[in-house]
């Protein structure tokens, strides 16, 4: 486990308020997602970020938002929220509506906002990791100093194509940061049952990639590590492998109804003591940066915000039938069906 935060505060009170608000909003948004899934308003597979908020918020405030490239797997709601994508369009996509970012053809696992340089949203475990190297390759080829963040799960860190990507990233000095969000479970398989060496950051070692394990639950620690590593990668134009220790409080996906198949209630409760939101609140309180009243007001505001987002998204109609044939190609229709 990572050590507790020992960082100097570089954040202004206004910054901290923003980060706190975004963490609250992610949790409220994700709670609505779990709800609408149960109501049948979202289908397929849906994976929420509850418990992991400090990781997303911290790392995405360490980059140049809208300039640097960001990509992740299918637990992908939080990243575009932090990057400033339209929350209504995100929710509409999750609900399969016309106004969604993919017009209802992507869904929860496939969110994209290319304008914000958020490149998804991928469903094949490990499959997106060479794409992340490719974003970095492309940006570097074009002479830009963009950094690419490519998130993946601990389960994906076993995929062959991930190792191929690490090798190429190191071989060609690509400014990509692979961020293994180690929430200790590959779906329902515990870390020690799926990884021969559970210190996943060491997978950078054979490729000569700088690697380390960092905390993902304490926002201030996350910000401090993230800024240091992003600055290094931008300056040195080399890859980095980071293992972020965090924990998801919900199931693997919204359809994961029996978490006790793979972890005990006691273990969950113990880990929930690490709640990144509570931890930030403790800090804000102790440092006299925010009063309890203000925090409560912000919590309420986040809930109201999420209700409003859901209400707006729910107004969006389902896509027209003609939409089924669109966007297969840039310049032609697919072969006709039945």
């Amino acid at each position: 486990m990572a050590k507790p935060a020992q960082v100097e505060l570089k954040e202004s009170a206004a910054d901290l308020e923003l980060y706190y608000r975004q963490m609250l909003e992610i949790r409220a948004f994700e709670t609505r997602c779990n709800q609408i899934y149960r109501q049948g308003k979202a289908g397929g597979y849906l994976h929420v970020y509850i418990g992991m908020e400090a990781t997303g918020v911290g790392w995405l405030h360490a980059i140049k938002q809208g300039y640097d490239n960001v990509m992740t797997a299918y637990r992908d709601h939080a990243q575009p929220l932090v990057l400033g994508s339209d929350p209504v369009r995100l929710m509409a996509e999750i609900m399969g509506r016309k106004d969604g970012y993919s017009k209802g053809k992507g869904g929860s696992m496939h969110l994209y906002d290319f304008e914000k340089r958020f490149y998804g949203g991928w469903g094949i475990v490990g499959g997106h990791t060479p794409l992340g190297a490719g974003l970095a390759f492309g940006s570097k080829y074009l002479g830009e100093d963009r950094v690419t963040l490519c998130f993946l799960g601990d389960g994906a860190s076993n995929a062959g194509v991930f190792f191929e990507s690490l090798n190429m990233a190191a071989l060609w000095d690509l400014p990509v940061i692979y961020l293994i969000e180690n929430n200790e479970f590959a779906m329902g398989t515990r870390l020690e049952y799926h990884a021969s060496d559970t210190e996943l950051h060491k997978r950078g070692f054979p490729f000569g990639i700088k690697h380390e394990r960092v905390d993902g639950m304490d926002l201030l620690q996350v910000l401090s590590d993230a800024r240091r590593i992003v600055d290094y990668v931008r300056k040195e134009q080399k890859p980095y492998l980071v293992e972020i220790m965090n924990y998801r409080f919900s199931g693997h996906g919204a359809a994961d109804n029996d978490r006790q198949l793979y972890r005990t209630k006691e273990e969950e409760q113990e880990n929930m003591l690490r709640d990144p939101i509570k931890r930030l609140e403790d800090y804000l309180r102790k440092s006299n940066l925010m009063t309890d009243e203000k925090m409560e007001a912000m919590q309420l505001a986040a809930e109201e915000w999420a209700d409003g987002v859901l209400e707006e998204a729910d107004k969006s109609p389902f896509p027209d039938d003609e939409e089924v044939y669109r966007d297969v190609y840039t310049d032609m229709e697919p072969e006709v069906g039945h």
Partner: protein
Amino acid sequence: MPLQELTYREALRTCIIEEMDSDPNVLVMGEDIGRYQGTFRVTQGLFDKYGPKRIVDTPIVEPGIVGIATGAALVGLRPIVEMMTMSFSILALDQTINHAAKMRYMTGGQAKVPLVIRGPGGAANQLSAQHSHSMEGWYAHVPGLKVVAPATVEDAYGMLRTAIRDDNPVIFTENPGLYGLKASITVGEGKSVPFGKANVVRQGSDMTLIGYSRMTHVCLAAAEKLAEQGISAEVVDVRSLLPLDTETIYNSVRKTHRAVVVYEDWKSGGFGAEIAARIVEDCFDDLDAPVVRVGGLNVPMPYVRKLELLCIPNENDVLKAIEKIK
């Protein structure tokens, strides 16, 4: 525009050079394509001309290569990936099908993937079971990809230009038996061959032989022999599998009332089966005989030449199959 005598291989190379000269974001990635000059020498000389930034020797990792090229395409590059052989592209099916091909749809039109995956597809000479695949039918099954299989020097040159300038992922398959083919062709900027246009390469009235890639030449050879028997065969070179120009195929079948589809891939489930099915579905009343398929034998490719030759359709196989419908 200048007329040049080129081999199929040189025509591909000439087109790559012209496209790289006109667009700095065009680059080539692949195994042994640079310092080693390319396994089939298509990229010969390019490393010396453009250097390692644009002629990228990769590790032998097909999924990684296609994935990294796809990611690079997303941010504005136009990569040409060479597969040492299309047989190896089987390793990269997840990247190609699950990622590159579906990306535009999954993003609701946000993504543009100008990617070419090209290389030798089909049997060469005793490369045996793991190096002799015809993959085009597998790819032509996939919405989001375009798939072409040029048979001539002129089409190799012109279709590669279309492929490189296309904003969608293109599978460009080159039968290794065609690399040495020679022809005098017109080259230059404006010279390109569009996708989705089949070519009637021989006029005839009694039956239609339909092929693509090297099988077009097998069809032409069979047509010669049929002429000796007094049978006039029309030959349609499909050229582009996806999009498929059914109109040209159907027009020919409506004229001749007989159709023979020739393809090197395994007969069962190969792309020729799709062409045959469409003819039956849409031209049933025009047919005077069942549609005949001549495909590769449904076995892994054997090593010894004697057996290998049994597997690859030739003009005699076509003639024998036609006996049923003459």
